[in-house]
């Protein structure tokens, strides 16, 4: 009796799990099948598989990739460059700053640390308007354009991602025994050597976490790049390109969904490769953050 009840409840749970999974994954399925159709077929039957063909998919993708508003390779390339450079700089500079803040128990380091933490609640909307005008004026003043440029946006990500990065790294560095650094210093390590040879390698797991968190955010971010790079500038990221493309092609759903497919595929591939790390990184970031 007892075991029978158990098997029936297991079956029910499994069925529920499958139904939810179908519901959750159904939009992705719709994106795939509808980017394989011509426009007319979508309006008549958006769920069915008839009229879907690989030839049409290739044609739709080609139309999107070569579209002057979307410029897929262009946007993809800039998205990759901006994300990777920002992540590397955030990891290195973030770790350096967190280490100094954590290991110096002075008034200043405490003030800086709490300013970082308090700043995490500031919504982007408050700073975005003055930010753009400051960047425009500063860029003109020093002769290096900061708007519509990669260095400018990377610098902005360094500023906006800094607080959370320092916060999470600081929590981890606190747990590293200080004796380790003392031993290194007795062995003749200068402080910077202690940091790069002893501390930085120990930070690998937590740097993975912050890189995943920052990476998800920077890759998908829309508002900051749309303000700093503009909709139709030469430098643009994938979300901005999708928005610019949709704005120019109202209701051409096969092309819009093909564009969405192009934006989704890189992340899904990355997720399939590094599923565990990504999920753990997101959890740890939330629990510590």
């Amino acid at each position: 009796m007892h075991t029978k009840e158990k098997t029936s409840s297991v079956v029910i749970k499994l069925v529920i799990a499958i139904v939810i999974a179908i519901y959750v994954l159904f939009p992705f399925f719709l994106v795939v099948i509808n980017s394989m159709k011509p426009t007319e077929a979508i309006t008549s039957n958006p769920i069915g598989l008839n009229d879907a063909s690989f030839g049409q998919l290739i044609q739709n993708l080609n139309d999107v990739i070569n579209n002057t508003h979307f410029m897929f390779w262009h946007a993809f390339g800039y998205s990759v460059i901006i994300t990777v450079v920002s992540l590397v700089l955030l990891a290195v500079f973030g770790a350096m700053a967190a280490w100094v803040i954590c290991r110096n128990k002075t008034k200043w380091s405490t003030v800086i640390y709490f300013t970082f933490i308090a700043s995490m609640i500031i919504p982007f909307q408050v700073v975005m308007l003055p930010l753009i005008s400051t960047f425009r004026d500063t860029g003109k003043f020093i002769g290096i354009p900061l708007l519509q440029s990669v260095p400018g946006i990377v610098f902005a990500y360094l500023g906006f991602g800094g607080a959370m990065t320092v916060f999470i790294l600081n929590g981890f560095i606190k747990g590293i025994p200080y004796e380790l650094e003392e031993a290194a210093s007795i062995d003749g390590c200068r402080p910077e050597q202690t940091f790069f040879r002893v501390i930085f390698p120990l930070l690998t797991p937590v740097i993975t976490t912050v890189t995943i968190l920052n990476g998800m955010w920077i890759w998908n971010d829309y508002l900051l790049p749309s303000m700093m790079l503009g909709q139709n500038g030469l430098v643009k990221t994938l979300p901005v390109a999708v928005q610019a493309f949709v704005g120019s092609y109202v209701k051409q759903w096969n092309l819009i969904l093909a564009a969405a497919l192009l934006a989704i595929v890189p992340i899904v591939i990355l997720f399939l490769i590094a599923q565990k790390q990504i999920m753990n990184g997101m959890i740890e970031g939330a629990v510590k953050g």
Partner: protein
Amino acid sequence: MGNENVGARRICSILMLAIGIVLAVRGLMLDLSGSGSEARGPMLIIGMVLLYFGLYILPTMRYHRAIINIIFLFPLLFAFLVTVIIPLVLGIGYSFTDWDGIRVRNVVGFENYAKIFSQPSFIWSIVITFLFVVVNMIMVNLVAFLLALLCTSKLKGMGFFRASYFLPNLIGGIVLGYIWQFIFSNVVTKMTTALFDSRYSMLSETKTAFIGIIIVYVWQYAGYIMLIYITGLNTVPGDVIEAAAIDGASPMQTLFNIKIPMIAPTITICTFLTLTSAFKQFDVNLALTNGTGSVADFMGSYLTNGTEMLALNIYSTAVIENKYAFGESKAVLFFIILAVVSIIQVRVSNKKEVEL
């Protein structure tokens, strides 16, 4: 370290510092004199980098640690000051002026703030944002918790289910918004036409469009919150649950009297996350409805921004309507609301945690 070595380093360091200062000052002078020389930008940067390295190899034992601290702290702190703190201070200042995005002509005091409260469309945005935040917080947490319970039961293939529930969270709000716009306006409309003979898209009506935004948000966010609840549930020791089962506790009793109290910290984290993210949400709102939707009568006026949340309202005021100072004062108010709500939430949860 040999004596000669120290000497060489000192010369090298002083040389770098000197050249660095000359280049940086020259660059700044060109900036100030208003010259359009292309070289002034690189000059300034090279000067700063030289200063940086000159300082680094300066051979002093006494101040070395202090120099390293400054060098290590500077890049991030500088970026943080320039992108967050200075714009924040400027922004609060601008909200009391007639700033148009480029220059300030007059200081107007609290005029912008007074205008905010006589604008029904903005009050509506506040109301709808609060409604969204509350409904969304309850729905996401409920769905995520149930999914977590499902995913912590020992079933085959749970790794797959967990990953697929989490998948929507990886995709940016803009792309998601358009995908769901397609689903609501094409797929769902087809179904409602067949079932109830109503040809209107869900997104064209304010009430149903609001429900639409919640559906999309729950779909996107619940998988992530679920992961956090799973982690929380896994920390509940197995022997406690076993002991409860031996004492004759039903699964429901175990859930409400043991599991939920024991994961109280997790609940705090999750409510905080859903609260702040729902408040700031912008991308889905922009891509799904762009704030459209009519409201027949609110505070005596007819509104067309039925689904426009605060973040989007601020954006359209400043960027679309070009009213920078007005948009900025709305943003400052938004910041204050967000800060107050987050503080209250943390206070309340902490109290609850103690009581449990």
